[in-house]
């Protein structure tokens, strides 16, 4: 336990330290990369609640990531064109306020997760993977074919959204926002894992029959986990869109679902800091190997294969050993 805690602290500090060094060296691109890692880690923290704690192999988390992205894109595009989002039955205007956008992203993704989860969680195993994938792809094709918000071309937002008291266009300040959100999400995820809900959810992953026998309903536990998970990934989507100042249907594609899953698996399924380790490693590989070869994902594939075959606990599991049951 102590070793994992130490490792977690190192991983946690790694992001701001790297960003700080980049600031001193005047390398804004590196800061942006670290910010991207933090946001993708947040998406992974979301997925990890469903996948790690609940054992729900969702191959459709791009749906929530994309919905968060479009929540940002749609609200901000209306604000920048000074057209209301809708006028009847009541007026909704666009907004450039990051906090409002986050709220919208959280609520949209949570509602979508509730609907998708309520249907998908009636299945298990491969069927669950396929049905979540299908929902993600449905939204992907919907986004492509809906011309109002850019269709296939996506939506560009010219100026990053506002956060009270900060200049969000300054890379290090935007990093601070993303990192702050990640820190809050990690704290929340660690509490959920140890709370009564987490105990029952992880028990349902191990043995659903046992959970039923003590009078708890696995379906309900999993649905709530799926909603929390989707909401967090949706929030990551809003931040990701803000980072790029651009939203496109790609956020909905199954590649995105796969990548979020790769972060979790690389870092360690069910480990609190697994997504942080995984996303950081992913960005590092993308940056370093991507510079050497356009086919860098081949190497990523080999690495993933090695992790799945020989290091089931991912990066965290390899460095910190088997998870100790929490006290």
């Amino acid at each position: 336990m102590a070793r994992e805690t130490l490792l977690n602290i190192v991983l946690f500090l790694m992001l701001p330290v790297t960003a700080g060094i980049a600031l001193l060296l005047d390398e804004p691109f590196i800061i942006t990369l670290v910010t991207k890692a933090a946001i993708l880690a947040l998406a992974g923290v979301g997925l990890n609640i469903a996948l790690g704690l609940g054992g729900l192999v969702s191959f459709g988390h791009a749906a929530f990531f994309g919905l968060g992205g479009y929540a940002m894109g749609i609200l901000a595009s209306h604000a920048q064109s000074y057209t209301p989002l809708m006028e009847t039955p009541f007026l909704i205007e666009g907004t450039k306020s990051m906090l409002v956008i986050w709220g919208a992203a959280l609520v949209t993704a949570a509602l979508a997760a509730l609907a998708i989860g309520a249907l998908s969680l009636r299945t298990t195993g491969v069927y669950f993977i396929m049905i979540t994938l299908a929902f993600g792809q449905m939204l992907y094709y919907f986004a492509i074919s809906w011309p109002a918000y850019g269709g296939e071309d996506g939506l560009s937002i010219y100026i990053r959204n506002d956060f009270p008291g900060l200049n969000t266009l300054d890379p290090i300040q935007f990093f601070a926002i993303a990192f702050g959100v990640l820190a809050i999400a990690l704290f929340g995820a660690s509490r959920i894992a140890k709370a009564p809900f987490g105990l029952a959810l992880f028990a349902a992953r191990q043995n659903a029959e046992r959970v039923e026998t003590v009078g708890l309903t696995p379906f309900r536990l999993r649905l709530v986990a799926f909603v929390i998970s989707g909401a967090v990934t949706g929030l990551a989507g809003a931040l990701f869109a803000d980072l790029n100042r651009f939203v496109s249907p790609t956020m909905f594609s199954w590649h995105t679902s796969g990548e979020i899953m790769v972060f979790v698996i690389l870092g360690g399924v069910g480990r609190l800091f697994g997504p942080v380790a995984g996303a950081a490693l992913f960005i590092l590989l993308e940056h370093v190997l991507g510079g050497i070869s356009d086919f860098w994902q081949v190497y990523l594939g080999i690495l993933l294969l090695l992790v799945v075959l020989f290091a089931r606990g991912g990066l965290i599991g390899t460095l910190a050993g088997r998870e100790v049951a929490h006290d």
Partner: protein
Amino acid sequence: MTDPLLKISNLNKSFGALKATDDVSLTLLPGEIHALIGPNGAGKSTLIKQVAGGLVSDSGRVEFSGRDVTSLATVARARAGLGRTFQISSLAMEYTVLQNVVLGALGKDGRVMRFFRPVMKDRDLVDRGMAALTRVGLEDKAARRTADLSHGQRRLLEVAVALTLEPKVFLMDEPMAGLGASGSKRLTAFLDGLRAQAPILLVEHDMDAVFALADRISVLVYGRIIATGTADEIKRDPAVREAYLGAEDAA
């Protein structure tokens, strides 16, 4: 006579042409241990599942403290006060022993949608879990990972989890299986006292335990109950001797 806590009437279940449960009726009275015995394949586990809720009956009724629970699922029956233990230990293997009983106590309360305070720091839940472990003699194994327990210890943990539910009725599917002679004797003594807390419907192969414990015994053969009575009556019953005990003597 007092009303039965558990009343099973004319229960049936077929798998294709096989009648696994054939018009079974039995009752469980307050304070008694009612043992269900029968040769392998007699349909004991099927019957237990029909009572616990894992298996839908073709026809018949299950009444539990005066309430018809036939249409209820496992979770609802557990909440109504049915405490089940499994023939093959069904525990959260990656959890510690203590976490398994705390899960039971949590299930009893039902207040599971709490997301913030650590459950293992909840004094009330932990105390109730420890109390259950102490009763079955597992208190010094509390911090052990469940997967690392011996088979016999897992059987005891099953019973401990059922205790945390504070059920109105215990439904125990071969709790003695694999306990060994001394463990079996200890659990027999424990169940003997437990009947005062709640009656037990006991499926068991260990005949010493059954004859020592049971107030009444029902013998299930090919899905039918061929006899119900006290230990002495069952020992004397010619149909039982032939169908069950006799077969065992021959072997």
